[in-house]
Protein backbone atom coordinates (compact mmCIF):
# COMPACT_ATOMS: atom_id res chain seq x y z
CA UNK A 1 0.00 0.00 0.00
CA UNK A 2 2.63 2.48 1.12
CA UNK A 3 6.24 1.71 0.46
CA UNK A 4 8.82 4.03 1.94
CA UNK A 5 12.18 3.25 0.36
CA UNK A 6 15.50 4.62 1.59
CA UNK A 7 14.08 7.99 2.49
CA UNK A 8 16.59 10.52 3.79
CA UNK A 9 15.92 14.11 4.74
CA UNK A 10 18.57 16.73 5.17
CA UNK A 11 18.09 20.38 6.00
CA UNK A 12 20.81 22.17 4.15
CA UNK A 13 21.75 24.25 7.16
CA UNK A 14 21.94 21.27 9.52
CA UNK A 15 25.03 19.36 10.59
CA UNK A 16 26.38 16.24 8.94
CA UNK A 17 23.78 14.13 10.65
CA UNK A 18 20.55 14.33 8.67
CA UNK A 19 17.04 14.64 10.09
CA UNK A 20 16.11 11.25 8.63
CA UNK A 21 18.63 8.77 7.25
CA UNK A 22 17.86 5.92 4.96
CA UNK A 23 14.54 4.81 6.41
CA UNK A 24 12.59 2.05 4.67
CA UNK A 25 9.17 0.94 5.80
CA UNK A 26 6.56 -1.09 4.02
CA UNK A 27 2.98 -0.75 5.16
CA UNK A 28 0.76 -3.59 4.03
CA UNK A 29 -2.83 -2.74 3.24
CA UNK A 30 -4.95 -2.41 6.36
CA UNK A 31 -2.08 -2.71 8.82
CA UNK A 32 -1.25 -0.34 11.61
CA UNK A 33 2.34 0.59 12.29
CA UNK A 34 3.55 2.60 15.25
CA UNK A 35 6.75 4.55 14.87
CA UNK A 36 8.30 5.25 18.25
CA UNK A 37 11.24 7.40 19.14
CA UNK A 38 12.37 10.29 21.26
CA UNK A 39 11.81 13.91 20.42
CA UNK A 40 14.22 14.83 17.66
CA UNK A 41 14.66 11.29 16.39
CA UNK A 42 13.22 12.29 13.04
CA UNK A 43 9.93 10.46 13.17
CA UNK A 44 7.70 13.48 12.55
CA UNK A 45 9.98 14.73 9.80
CA UNK A 46 9.65 11.34 8.14
CA UNK A 47 5.85 11.66 8.13
CA UNK A 48 6.00 15.10 6.59
CA UNK A 49 8.56 13.93 4.06
CA UNK A 50 6.29 11.09 2.96
CA UNK A 51 3.60 13.62 1.99
CA UNK A 52 6.15 16.12 0.71
CA UNK A 53 4.99 18.67 3.23
CA UNK A 54 8.43 19.80 4.34
CA UNK A 55 9.62 23.31 3.51
CA UNK A 56 11.53 23.78 0.29
CA UNK A 57 14.82 23.96 2.19
CA UNK A 58 14.63 20.25 3.00
CA UNK A 59 16.45 17.88 0.70
CA UNK A 60 14.55 14.62 0.42
CA UNK A 61 15.92 11.55 -1.30
CA UNK A 62 14.58 8.04 -1.77
CA UNK A 63 11.09 7.20 -2.88
CA UNK A 64 7.63 6.87 -1.39
CA UNK A 65 5.38 4.57 -3.37
CA UNK A 66 1.66 4.89 -2.78
CA UNK A 67 0.08 2.06 -4.73
CA UNK A 68 2.90 2.32 -7.19
CA UNK A 69 2.96 6.12 -7.56
CA UNK A 70 6.12 7.80 -6.33
CA UNK A 71 4.83 10.72 -4.26
CA UNK A 72 8.23 12.39 -4.11
CA UNK A 73 8.38 12.76 -7.87
CA UNK A 74 4.98 14.45 -8.17
CA UNK A 75 4.39 18.15 -8.69
CA UNK A 76 2.62 20.27 -6.10
CA UNK A 77 -0.56 20.31 -8.24
CA UNK A 78 -0.57 16.53 -8.58
CA UNK A 79 0.02 16.17 -4.85
CA UNK A 80 -2.98 18.40 -4.11
CA UNK A 81 -5.24 15.83 -5.70
CA UNK A 82 -3.69 12.97 -3.70
CA UNK A 83 -3.28 14.56 -0.28
CA UNK A 84 -6.43 14.18 1.78
CA UNK A 85 -7.90 11.94 -0.90
CA UNK A 86 -5.67 8.88 -0.95
CA UNK A 87 -3.28 9.69 1.87
CA UNK A 88 -4.02 11.83 4.91
CA UNK A 89 -2.03 13.51 7.59
CA UNK A 90 -3.43 13.95 11.07
CA UNK A 91 -1.76 16.68 13.12
CA UNK A 92 -1.39 16.71 16.90
CA UNK A 93 -4.63 17.31 18.78
CA UNK A 94 -2.88 19.25 21.50
CA UNK A 95 -1.40 21.67 19.03
CA UNK A 96 -2.75 24.30 16.74
CA UNK A 97 -3.72 21.93 13.96
CA UNK A 98 -7.22 23.27 13.46
CA UNK A 99 -8.03 26.71 12.08
CA UNK A 100 -9.26 28.69 15.12
CA UNK A 101 -11.69 30.75 13.02
CA UNK A 102 -13.39 27.93 11.15
CA UNK A 103 -16.15 25.70 12.45
CA UNK A 104 -15.27 22.05 13.08
CA UNK A 105 -17.78 20.70 10.59
CA UNK A 106 -16.37 22.78 7.76
CA UNK A 107 -12.83 21.69 8.59
CA UNK A 108 -13.76 18.02 8.69
CA UNK A 109 -15.80 18.28 5.51
CA UNK A 110 -13.23 20.33 3.62
CA UNK A 111 -11.57 17.36 1.87
CA UNK A 112 -15.02 16.37 0.57
CA UNK A 113 -15.51 19.83 -0.90
CA UNK A 114 -12.14 19.87 -2.63
CA UNK A 115 -11.87 16.22 -3.66
CA UNK A 116 -15.46 15.12 -4.12
CA UNK A 117 -17.11 18.36 -5.19
CA UNK A 118 -19.53 18.34 -2.25
CA UNK A 119 -21.46 21.48 -1.41
CA UNK A 120 -20.61 23.11 1.89
CA UNK A 121 -23.91 22.00 3.40
CA UNK A 122 -23.53 18.42 2.28
CA UNK A 123 -19.94 18.28 3.51
CA UNK A 124 -20.95 19.50 6.95
CA UNK A 125 -23.79 16.98 7.08
CA UNK A 126 -21.29 14.27 6.20
CA UNK A 127 -18.93 15.45 8.92
CA UNK A 128 -21.67 14.72 11.45
CA UNK A 129 -21.65 11.12 10.24
CA UNK A 130 -17.87 11.01 10.41
CA UNK A 131 -17.80 12.27 13.98
CA UNK A 132 -20.44 9.70 14.88
CA UNK A 133 -17.99 7.02 13.84
CA UNK A 134 -15.71 8.21 16.63
CA UNK A 135 -18.53 8.46 19.19
CA UNK A 136 -18.11 12.07 20.09
CA UNK A 137 -21.73 12.46 21.19
CA UNK A 138 -23.88 15.47 20.23
CA UNK A 139 -22.22 15.49 16.84
CA UNK A 140 -24.75 17.90 15.29
CA UNK A 141 -23.84 20.53 17.84
CA UNK A 142 -20.11 19.94 17.73
CA UNK A 143 -19.85 20.50 14.00
CA UNK A 144 -20.98 24.07 14.64
CA UNK A 145 -18.34 24.58 17.31
CA UNK A 146 -14.98 26.28 16.93
CA UNK A 147 -11.80 24.36 17.80
CA UNK A 148 -11.19 26.18 21.08
CA UNK A 149 -14.48 24.85 22.44
CA UNK A 150 -13.29 21.25 22.13
CA UNK A 151 -11.03 19.48 24.57
CA UNK A 152 -7.71 18.11 23.37
CA UNK A 153 -9.07 14.59 23.12
CA UNK A 154 -12.11 15.71 21.16
CA UNK A 155 -9.96 17.75 18.81
CA UNK A 156 -7.84 14.69 18.16
CA UNK A 157 -10.92 12.66 17.29
CA UNK A 158 -12.20 15.43 15.04
CA UNK A 159 -8.87 15.41 13.26
CA UNK A 160 -8.94 11.68 12.73
CA UNK A 161 -12.42 12.11 11.26
CA UNK A 162 -11.00 14.85 9.05
CA UNK A 163 -8.25 12.51 7.90
CA UNK A 164 -10.63 9.86 6.65
CA UNK A 165 -13.32 12.28 5.46
CA UNK A 166 -12.71 11.88 1.75
CA UNK A 167 -12.17 8.16 2.05
CA UNK A 168 -8.40 8.25 2.29
CA UNK A 169 -7.01 4.76 2.81
CA UNK A 170 -3.60 5.66 4.20
CA UNK A 171 -3.46 7.67 7.38
CA UNK A 172 -0.34 9.25 8.83
CA UNK A 173 -0.79 10.45 12.40
CA UNK A 174 1.68 12.69 14.19
CA UNK A 175 1.91 12.14 17.95
CA UNK A 176 -1.83 11.94 18.49
CA UNK A 177 -1.44 11.58 22.24
CA UNK A 178 0.73 14.60 22.87
CA UNK A 179 -0.61 16.73 25.67
CA UNK A 180 -3.37 14.32 26.67
CA UNK A 181 -3.87 12.57 29.99
CA UNK A 182 -4.00 8.79 30.38
CA UNK A 183 -7.76 8.62 30.06
CA UNK A 184 -7.91 10.61 26.83
CA UNK A 185 -5.00 8.63 25.40
CA UNK A 186 -7.12 5.53 25.87
CA UNK A 187 -9.96 7.26 24.03
CA UNK A 188 -7.72 8.16 21.11
CA UNK A 189 -6.38 4.61 20.97
CA UNK A 190 -9.98 3.40 20.69
CA UNK A 191 -10.56 5.80 17.83
CA UNK A 192 -7.69 4.30 15.92
CA UNK A 193 -9.18 0.89 16.54
CA UNK A 194 -12.39 2.07 14.85
CA UNK A 195 -10.33 2.47 11.71
CA UNK A 196 -10.94 -0.77 9.88
CA UNK A 197 -9.34 -1.28 6.53
CA UNK A 198 -7.32 1.92 6.64
CA UNK A 199 -3.57 1.68 6.65
CA UNK A 200 -2.08 3.60 9.54
CA UNK A 201 1.36 4.93 10.30
CA UNK A 202 1.31 6.52 13.71
CA UNK A 203 4.21 8.44 15.21
CA UNK A 204 4.33 8.46 18.97
CA UNK A 205 6.66 8.55 21.93
CA UNK A 206 4.19 6.77 24.13
CA UNK A 207 5.19 3.10 24.20
CA UNK A 208 1.92 1.95 25.74
CA UNK A 209 -0.06 3.79 23.11
CA UNK A 210 2.10 2.23 20.42
CA UNK A 211 1.35 -1.16 21.90
CA UNK A 212 -2.39 -0.62 21.84
CA UNK A 213 -2.54 0.88 18.35
CA UNK A 214 0.23 -0.72 16.31
CA UNK A 215 0.48 -4.16 14.81
CA UNK A 216 4.01 -3.38 13.77
CA UNK A 217 6.50 -1.35 15.72
CA UNK A 218 9.36 0.61 14.29
CA UNK A 219 11.91 2.36 16.47
CA UNK A 220 13.77 5.46 15.38
CA UNK A 221 16.82 6.88 17.05
CA UNK A 222 18.91 9.83 15.89
CA UNK A 223 17.47 9.88 12.37
CA UNK A 224 17.91 6.13 11.83
CA UNK A 225 15.60 3.20 12.10
CA UNK A 226 16.96 0.82 14.73
CA UNK A 227 14.37 -1.88 14.84
CA UNK A 228 11.26 -3.07 13.04
CA UNK A 229 9.13 -5.99 14.15
CA UNK A 230 5.67 -7.32 14.73
CA UNK A 231 4.25 -5.94 17.94
CA UNK A 232 4.38 -9.26 19.84
CA UNK A 233 7.93 -9.95 18.79
CA UNK A 234 9.00 -6.46 19.72
CA UNK A 235 7.53 -6.47 23.18
CA UNK A 236 8.51 -10.02 24.01
CA UNK A 237 11.98 -10.12 22.51
CA UNK A 238 13.27 -6.69 21.69
CA UNK A 239 16.57 -7.09 19.88
CA UNK A 240 18.23 -3.71 19.94
CA UNK A 241 19.85 -2.60 23.20
CA UNK A 242 18.03 0.73 22.82
CA UNK A 243 14.65 -0.95 22.52
CA UNK A 244 15.42 -3.04 25.55
CA UNK A 245 16.40 0.07 27.47
CA UNK A 246 13.14 1.76 26.52
CA UNK A 247 11.03 -1.18 27.60
CA UNK A 248 13.00 -1.63 30.81
CA UNK A 249 12.50 2.01 31.62
CA UNK A 250 8.72 1.60 31.70
CA UNK A 251 7.07 1.71 35.12
CA UNK A 252 5.13 -1.46 34.24
CA UNK A 253 8.39 -3.30 33.92
CA UNK A 254 9.82 -1.95 37.12
CA UNK A 255 11.82 1.04 35.92
CA UNK A 256 14.83 -1.17 35.50
CA UNK A 257 16.87 1.16 33.38
CA UNK A 258 17.51 4.83 33.07
CA UNK A 259 19.89 5.87 30.37
CA UNK A 260 18.61 9.42 30.12
CA UNK A 261 17.77 11.21 26.91
CA UNK A 262 19.36 11.15 23.50
CA UNK A 263 22.13 13.72 23.03
CA UNK A 264 21.77 16.49 20.44
CA UNK A 265 22.33 15.67 16.79
CA UNK A 266 25.83 17.07 16.47
CA UNK A 267 27.08 14.88 19.32
CA UNK A 268 26.99 11.57 17.46
CA UNK A 269 29.84 9.71 15.89
CA UNK A 270 29.20 9.99 12.20
CA UNK A 271 31.05 6.82 11.33
CA UNK A 272 29.72 4.20 13.69
CA UNK A 273 26.52 3.25 15.43
CA UNK A 274 24.53 6.24 16.67
CA UNK A 275 23.65 4.52 19.92
CA UNK A 276 27.18 3.35 20.72
CA UNK A 277 27.91 6.06 23.29
CA UNK A 278 25.07 4.91 25.49
CA UNK A 279 25.18 1.22 24.67
CA UNK A 280 26.23 -1.20 27.42
CA UNK A 281 27.23 -3.85 24.86
CA UNK A 282 29.35 -1.77 22.59
CA UNK A 283 32.56 -3.07 21.10
CA UNK A 284 35.23 -1.58 18.86
CA UNK A 285 33.33 -2.20 15.66
CA UNK A 286 30.38 -0.13 16.86
CA UNK A 287 32.43 3.07 16.85
CA UNK A 288 34.04 2.42 13.52
CA UNK A 289 31.41 1.17 11.18
CA UNK A 290 27.75 1.91 10.75
CA UNK A 291 25.75 -1.24 11.48
CA UNK A 292 23.54 -2.50 8.65
CA UNK A 293 19.79 -3.07 9.05
CA UNK A 294 19.89 -6.81 9.65
CA UNK A 295 16.93 -9.08 9.03
CA UNK A 296 16.62 -11.70 11.79
CA UNK A 297 13.73 -13.86 10.63
CA UNK A 298 11.50 -10.92 9.72
CA UNK A 299 12.57 -8.95 12.77
CA UNK A 300 14.85 -6.17 11.57
CA UNK A 301 17.49 -4.57 13.73
CA UNK A 302 20.40 -2.21 13.23
CA UNK A 303 23.05 -3.65 15.55
CA UNK A 304 26.38 -5.41 15.11
CA UNK A 305 25.40 -8.03 17.70
CA UNK A 306 23.21 -9.72 15.12
CA UNK A 307 25.68 -9.74 12.26
CA UNK A 308 26.92 -13.15 11.24
Amino acid sequence: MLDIQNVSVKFSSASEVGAVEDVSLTLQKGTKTALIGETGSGKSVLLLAVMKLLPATAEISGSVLLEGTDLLSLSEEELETIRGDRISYIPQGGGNGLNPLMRIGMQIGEPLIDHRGYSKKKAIAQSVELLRRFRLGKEETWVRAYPHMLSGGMRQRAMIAMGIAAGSRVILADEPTKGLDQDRIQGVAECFQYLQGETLLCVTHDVNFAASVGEYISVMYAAQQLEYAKKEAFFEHPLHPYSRAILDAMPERGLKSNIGFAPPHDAYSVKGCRFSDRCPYKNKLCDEKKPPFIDVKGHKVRCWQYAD
Partner: protein
Amino acid sequence: MLFPFRGFERDLSMKRKIILNRLLISLGTIFLIVTISFILVNLMPGDPLVNIMGDDQYYRVKYSDPELLEEIAKKYGLDGSLGERYVKYLGNILRLDFGFSFTRNRSVLDIVLYRLRWTLVLAVPATILSALFGALLGIRAGWYQNGLLDRIMTPLTLVLNTIPTNCTAILFLTLFSYKLRLFPISGMASGGLTGGAYIRDVMWHMCLPLSVMVLSRTCSNFIHMKSYVIQVKGEEYILTAVAKGVPKTKVLFRHVLKNALLPYVTILCMQFGHIVSGSVMIEVVFSWVGMGNVMNTAISASDFPIMQMCFLLTAVCMVVSSILADVLYVLLDPRIKEV
Protein backbone atom coordinates in the same frame (compact mmCIF):
# COMPACT_ATOMS: atom_id res chain seq x y z
CA MET B 1 -18.14 15.52 30.77
CA LEU B 2 -19.47 18.93 31.55
CA PHE B 3 -22.20 20.17 29.30
CA PRO B 4 -20.09 22.10 26.88
CA PHE B 5 -22.71 24.03 24.97
CA ARG B 6 -23.49 26.78 27.33
CA GLY B 7 -21.73 29.03 24.88
CA PHE B 8 -23.79 28.20 21.85
CA GLU B 9 -27.26 29.33 22.75
CA ARG B 10 -25.91 32.17 24.75
CA ASP B 11 -23.33 33.06 22.16
CA LEU B 12 -25.21 36.02 20.79
CA SER B 13 -26.44 37.38 24.09
CA MET B 14 -22.94 36.95 25.45
CA LYS B 15 -21.50 38.95 22.60
CA ARG B 16 -24.14 41.61 23.09
CA LYS B 17 -23.20 41.76 26.74
CA ILE B 18 -19.52 42.18 25.96
CA ILE B 19 -20.22 44.93 23.46
CA LEU B 20 -22.51 46.74 25.88
CA ASN B 21 -19.85 46.47 28.52
CA ARG B 22 -17.23 47.97 26.22
CA LEU B 23 -19.62 50.81 25.34
CA LEU B 24 -20.13 51.64 29.00
CA ILE B 25 -16.39 51.61 29.62
CA SER B 26 -15.91 53.99 26.69
CA LEU B 27 -18.53 56.37 27.99
CA GLY B 28 -16.71 56.33 31.30
CA THR B 29 -13.45 57.05 29.55
CA ILE B 30 -14.92 60.00 27.69
CA PHE B 31 -16.31 61.38 30.92
CA LEU B 32 -12.86 61.03 32.45
CA ILE B 33 -11.26 62.85 29.53
CA VAL B 34 -13.76 65.68 29.82
CA THR B 35 -13.05 65.94 33.52
CA ILE B 36 -9.29 65.89 33.07
CA SER B 37 -9.60 68.62 30.50
CA PHE B 38 -11.52 70.67 33.08
CA ILE B 39 -8.97 69.96 35.79
CA LEU B 40 -6.09 70.95 33.52
CA VAL B 41 -7.54 74.40 33.03
CA ASN B 42 -8.97 75.05 36.43
CA LEU B 43 -6.54 73.53 38.84
CA MET B 44 -3.42 74.95 37.29
CA PRO B 45 -1.84 77.41 39.68
CA GLY B 46 -3.14 80.92 39.42
CA ASP B 47 -6.23 82.30 37.81
CA PRO B 48 -7.36 80.07 34.93
CA LEU B 49 -7.79 83.25 32.96
CA VAL B 50 -4.01 83.53 32.91
CA ASN B 51 -3.88 80.29 31.01
CA ILE B 52 -6.60 81.41 28.69
CA MET B 53 -5.42 84.93 28.02
CA GLY B 54 -1.72 84.55 28.50
CA ASP B 55 0.42 86.45 31.00
CA ASP B 56 0.79 89.75 29.18
CA GLN B 57 -2.79 90.28 28.28
CA TYR B 58 -4.06 89.12 31.65
CA TYR B 59 -1.99 91.52 33.67
CA ARG B 60 -2.58 94.37 31.27
CA VAL B 61 -6.34 93.95 31.58
CA LYS B 62 -6.15 93.28 35.31
CA TYR B 63 -4.53 96.60 36.05
CA SER B 64 -6.22 98.72 33.43
CA ASP B 65 -9.74 97.38 33.56
CA PRO B 66 -10.56 94.91 36.37
CA GLU B 67 -14.24 94.95 35.49
CA LEU B 68 -13.49 93.73 32.01
CA LEU B 69 -11.60 90.84 33.58
CA GLU B 70 -14.70 89.86 35.54
CA GLU B 71 -16.73 90.07 32.39
CA ILE B 72 -14.30 87.87 30.56
CA ALA B 73 -14.31 85.42 33.45
CA LYS B 74 -18.09 85.28 33.22
CA LYS B 75 -17.99 84.78 29.49
CA TYR B 76 -15.75 81.75 29.93
CA GLY B 77 -17.83 80.45 32.82
CA LEU B 78 -15.00 81.10 35.22
CA ASP B 79 -17.07 82.82 37.90
CA GLY B 80 -18.47 80.98 40.87
CA SER B 81 -16.99 78.11 42.91
CA LEU B 82 -15.09 75.22 41.38
CA GLY B 83 -18.02 72.83 41.84
CA GLU B 84 -20.45 75.20 40.21
CA ARG B 85 -18.10 75.72 37.32
CA TYR B 86 -17.66 71.99 36.82
CA VAL B 87 -21.39 71.37 36.68
CA LYS B 88 -21.83 74.24 34.27
CA TYR B 89 -18.98 72.98 32.14
CA LEU B 90 -20.47 69.50 31.94
CA GLY B 91 -23.83 70.98 31.04
CA ASN B 92 -22.26 73.02 28.27
CA ILE B 93 -20.54 70.01 26.82
CA LEU B 94 -23.76 68.01 26.87
CA ARG B 95 -25.37 70.84 24.92
CA LEU B 96 -22.33 70.78 22.60
CA ASP B 97 -21.55 74.33 23.64
CA PHE B 98 -17.80 74.69 23.56
CA GLY B 99 -17.74 78.42 23.92
CA PHE B 100 -16.36 81.12 21.69
CA SER B 101 -13.09 81.26 19.90
CA PHE B 102 -10.62 83.69 21.29
CA THR B 103 -9.17 84.87 18.05
CA ARG B 104 -12.16 84.59 15.78
CA ASN B 105 -15.48 85.79 16.99
CA ARG B 106 -17.34 82.60 16.18
CA SER B 107 -18.49 79.63 18.18
CA VAL B 108 -15.84 76.98 18.54
CA LEU B 109 -18.24 74.29 17.40
CA ASP B 110 -18.88 76.09 14.12
CA ILE B 111 -15.20 76.56 13.38
CA VAL B 112 -14.20 73.03 14.28
CA LEU B 113 -17.06 71.31 12.47
CA TYR B 114 -16.39 73.30 9.34
CA ARG B 115 -12.70 72.48 9.41
CA LEU B 116 -13.35 68.87 10.36
CA ARG B 117 -15.20 68.47 7.07
CA TRP B 118 -12.09 69.42 5.12
CA THR B 119 -9.91 67.10 7.15
CA LEU B 120 -12.30 64.22 6.58
CA VAL B 121 -12.37 64.91 2.84
CA LEU B 122 -8.66 64.15 2.94
CA ALA B 123 -8.35 61.59 5.73
CA VAL B 124 -11.25 59.27 4.94
CA PRO B 125 -10.23 58.43 1.36
CA ALA B 126 -6.59 58.26 2.47
CA THR B 127 -7.39 55.74 5.21
CA ILE B 128 -9.57 53.62 2.95
CA LEU B 129 -7.20 53.63 -0.01
CA SER B 130 -4.12 52.89 2.06
CA ALA B 131 -5.98 50.11 3.90
CA LEU B 132 -6.82 48.52 0.56
CA PHE B 133 -3.42 48.99 -1.06
CA GLY B 134 -1.56 47.90 2.08
CA ALA B 135 -3.70 44.78 2.41
CA LEU B 136 -3.53 43.74 -1.24
CA LEU B 137 0.20 44.28 -1.59
CA GLY B 138 0.96 42.89 1.86
CA ILE B 139 -1.04 39.72 1.26
CA ARG B 140 0.68 39.12 -2.05
CA ALA B 141 4.16 39.82 -0.74
CA GLY B 142 3.59 37.66 2.34
CA TRP B 143 2.08 34.78 0.40
CA TYR B 144 4.81 34.80 -2.24
CA GLN B 145 7.57 35.52 0.21
CA ASN B 146 10.85 36.43 -1.50
CA GLY B 147 8.94 36.83 -4.75
CA LEU B 148 9.45 39.81 -7.02
CA LEU B 149 6.87 42.01 -5.33
CA ASP B 150 8.28 41.22 -1.89
CA ARG B 151 11.84 41.91 -2.96
CA ILE B 152 10.88 45.28 -4.42
CA MET B 153 8.29 46.44 -1.92
CA THR B 154 9.88 45.46 1.36
CA PRO B 155 13.06 47.57 1.15
CA LEU B 156 11.12 50.38 -0.52
CA THR B 157 8.44 50.57 2.14
CA LEU B 158 10.98 50.29 4.93
CA VAL B 159 12.86 53.29 3.57
CA LEU B 160 9.71 55.31 2.88
CA ASN B 161 8.38 54.45 6.30
CA THR B 162 11.35 56.13 7.97
CA ILE B 163 10.92 59.41 6.09
CA PRO B 164 8.61 61.77 8.01
CA THR B 165 5.50 62.75 6.06
CA ASN B 166 6.32 66.44 6.13
CA CYS B 167 9.56 65.69 4.26
CA THR B 168 7.75 63.65 1.63
CA ALA B 169 5.16 66.40 1.43
CA ILE B 170 7.78 69.07 0.75
CA LEU B 171 9.51 66.78 -1.73
CA PHE B 172 6.25 66.20 -3.61
CA LEU B 173 5.44 69.87 -3.52
CA THR B 174 8.80 70.88 -4.96
CA LEU B 175 8.76 68.20 -7.61
CA PHE B 176 5.19 68.11 -8.84
CA SER B 177 3.98 71.63 -8.13
CA TYR B 178 7.01 73.82 -8.34
CA LYS B 179 9.16 72.07 -10.95
CA LEU B 180 6.64 70.20 -13.06
CA ARG B 181 3.71 72.50 -12.35
CA LEU B 182 1.26 69.61 -12.47
CA PHE B 183 -0.59 70.46 -9.29
CA PRO B 184 -1.43 73.62 -7.34
CA ILE B 185 1.12 74.71 -4.76
CA SER B 186 -1.33 75.16 -1.92
CA GLY B 187 -4.89 75.61 -0.87
CA MET B 188 -8.03 73.59 -1.28
CA ALA B 189 -9.88 75.20 -4.19
CA SER B 190 -9.58 78.03 -6.64
CA GLY B 191 -12.09 80.79 -6.20
CA GLY B 192 -15.23 81.43 -8.17
CA LEU B 193 -16.15 77.88 -9.12
CA THR B 194 -19.43 76.08 -8.55
CA GLY B 195 -20.94 72.65 -9.08
CA GLY B 196 -18.99 69.99 -10.95
CA ALA B 197 -16.16 72.35 -11.79
CA TYR B 198 -15.72 73.11 -8.08
CA ILE B 199 -15.62 69.43 -7.14
CA ARG B 200 -13.10 68.71 -9.89
CA ASP B 201 -11.02 71.60 -8.70
CA VAL B 202 -11.03 70.38 -5.09
CA MET B 203 -10.01 66.93 -6.26
CA TRP B 204 -7.19 68.44 -8.24
CA HIS B 205 -6.00 70.27 -5.13
CA MET B 206 -6.37 67.07 -3.13
CA CYS B 207 -4.11 65.01 -5.34
CA LEU B 208 -0.79 65.79 -3.72
CA PRO B 209 -1.74 65.79 -0.03
CA LEU B 210 -3.79 62.66 -0.57
CA SER B 211 -0.93 60.91 -2.37
CA VAL B 212 1.48 61.71 0.44
CA MET B 213 -0.91 60.38 3.06
CA VAL B 214 -1.77 57.26 1.09
CA LEU B 215 1.88 56.59 0.39
CA SER B 216 3.01 56.80 3.98
CA ARG B 217 0.12 54.78 5.39
CA THR B 218 0.26 52.17 2.66
CA CYS B 219 3.88 51.57 3.59
CA SER B 220 3.16 50.83 7.22
CA ASN B 221 0.00 48.86 6.36
CA PHE B 222 1.99 46.82 3.88
CA ILE B 223 4.67 45.95 6.40
CA HIS B 224 2.06 44.92 8.97
CA MET B 225 -0.04 42.87 6.58
CA LYS B 226 2.94 41.09 5.14
CA SER B 227 4.16 40.03 8.56
CA TYR B 228 0.69 38.84 9.59
CA VAL B 229 0.38 36.70 6.47
CA ILE B 230 3.84 35.22 6.99
CA GLN B 231 3.05 34.49 10.60
CA VAL B 232 -0.26 32.77 9.80
CA LYS B 233 1.36 30.85 6.94
CA GLY B 234 3.66 29.18 9.47
CA GLU B 235 0.82 28.04 11.72
CA GLU B 236 0.15 24.35 12.07
CA TYR B 237 -3.42 24.62 10.77
CA ILE B 238 -2.11 25.83 7.43
CA LEU B 239 -0.01 22.68 7.21
CA THR B 240 -3.17 20.75 8.05
CA ALA B 241 -5.02 22.44 5.22
CA VAL B 242 -2.24 21.69 2.73
CA ALA B 243 -2.13 18.09 3.95
CA LYS B 244 -5.87 17.86 3.27
CA GLY B 245 -5.17 18.65 -0.34
CA VAL B 246 -6.78 22.07 -0.25
CA PRO B 247 -5.57 23.89 -3.40
CA LYS B 248 -3.08 26.65 -2.76
CA THR B 249 -5.30 29.61 -3.55
CA LYS B 250 -8.07 28.17 -1.41
CA VAL B 251 -5.62 27.78 1.47
CA LEU B 252 -5.00 31.49 1.15
CA PHE B 253 -8.63 32.53 0.93
CA ARG B 254 -10.19 30.05 3.34
CA HIS B 255 -7.49 29.76 5.97
CA VAL B 256 -4.83 32.47 5.82
CA LEU B 257 -6.84 35.59 5.05
CA LYS B 258 -9.30 35.68 7.90
CA ASN B 259 -6.63 34.91 10.44
CA ALA B 260 -4.32 37.60 9.06
CA LEU B 261 -7.08 40.20 8.74
CA LEU B 262 -7.90 39.98 12.42
CA PRO B 263 -4.81 41.86 13.66
CA TYR B 264 -4.94 44.10 10.57
CA VAL B 265 -8.35 45.35 11.67
CA THR B 266 -6.78 46.56 14.89
CA ILE B 267 -4.18 48.73 13.23
CA LEU B 268 -6.81 50.15 10.88
CA CYS B 269 -8.92 51.10 13.85
CA MET B 270 -5.95 52.79 15.45
CA GLN B 271 -5.54 54.81 12.27
CA PHE B 272 -9.14 55.85 12.51
CA GLY B 273 -8.29 57.18 15.95
CA HIS B 274 -5.76 59.49 14.36
CA ILE B 275 -8.12 60.62 11.66
CA VAL B 276 -8.65 64.07 13.19
CA SER B 277 -5.16 64.77 14.42
CA GLY B 278 -3.00 62.63 12.18
CA SER B 279 -2.67 65.00 9.27
CA VAL B 280 -1.38 68.16 10.97
CA MET B 281 1.95 68.11 9.14
CA ILE B 282 0.48 67.48 5.73
CA GLU B 283 -2.23 70.08 6.19
CA VAL B 284 0.31 72.68 7.22
CA VAL B 285 2.64 71.97 4.30
CA PHE B 286 -0.15 72.02 1.72
CA SER B 287 -2.07 74.86 3.41
CA TRP B 288 -5.03 72.56 3.66
CA VAL B 289 -7.22 74.36 6.14
CA GLY B 290 -8.54 71.42 8.09
CA MET B 291 -8.35 70.37 11.71
CA GLY B 292 -4.59 70.08 11.69
CA ASN B 293 -4.24 73.64 10.54
CA VAL B 294 -6.83 74.88 13.01
CA MET B 295 -4.95 73.15 15.82
CA ASN B 296 -1.69 74.56 14.61
CA THR B 297 -2.93 78.16 14.54
CA ALA B 298 -4.90 77.76 17.77
CA ILE B 299 -1.77 76.66 19.57
CA SER B 300 0.34 79.52 18.28
CA ALA B 301 -2.42 82.02 19.04
CA SER B 302 -3.25 80.49 22.46
CA ASP B 303 -6.84 80.17 21.36
CA PHE B 304 -7.70 78.04 24.31
CA PRO B 305 -11.36 77.11 23.65
CA ILE B 306 -10.47 75.76 20.22
CA MET B 307 -7.55 73.82 21.61
CA GLN B 308 -9.78 72.34 24.25
CA MET B 309 -12.35 71.16 21.75
CA CYS B 310 -9.68 69.73 19.45
CA PHE B 311 -8.25 67.91 22.42
CA LEU B 312 -11.65 66.48 23.32
CA LEU B 313 -12.42 65.54 19.74
CA THR B 314 -9.09 63.76 19.29
CA ALA B 315 -9.58 61.89 22.55
CA VAL B 316 -13.13 60.90 21.63
CA CYS B 317 -11.89 59.65 18.26
CA MET B 318 -9.33 57.48 20.00
CA VAL B 319 -11.96 56.06 22.34
CA VAL B 320 -14.38 55.42 19.49
CA SER B 321 -11.70 53.70 17.42
CA SER B 322 -10.63 51.46 20.26
CA ILE B 323 -14.22 50.44 20.95
CA LEU B 324 -14.65 49.84 17.24
CA ALA B 325 -11.66 47.49 17.33
CA ASP B 326 -13.08 45.73 20.38
CA VAL B 327 -16.50 45.27 18.83
CA LEU B 328 -15.07 44.03 15.54
CA TYR B 329 -12.90 41.55 17.41
CA VAL B 330 -15.86 40.25 19.36
CA LEU B 331 -17.79 39.82 16.13
CA LEU B 332 -14.94 38.31 14.13
CA ASP B 333 -13.11 36.13 16.63
CA PRO B 334 -15.15 33.28 18.12
CA ARG B 335 -12.56 32.79 20.84
CA ILE B 336 -13.44 36.04 22.60
CA LYS B 337 -16.05 35.21 25.17
CA GLU B 338 -15.01 36.88 28.38
CA VAL B 339 -15.01 40.53 29.09
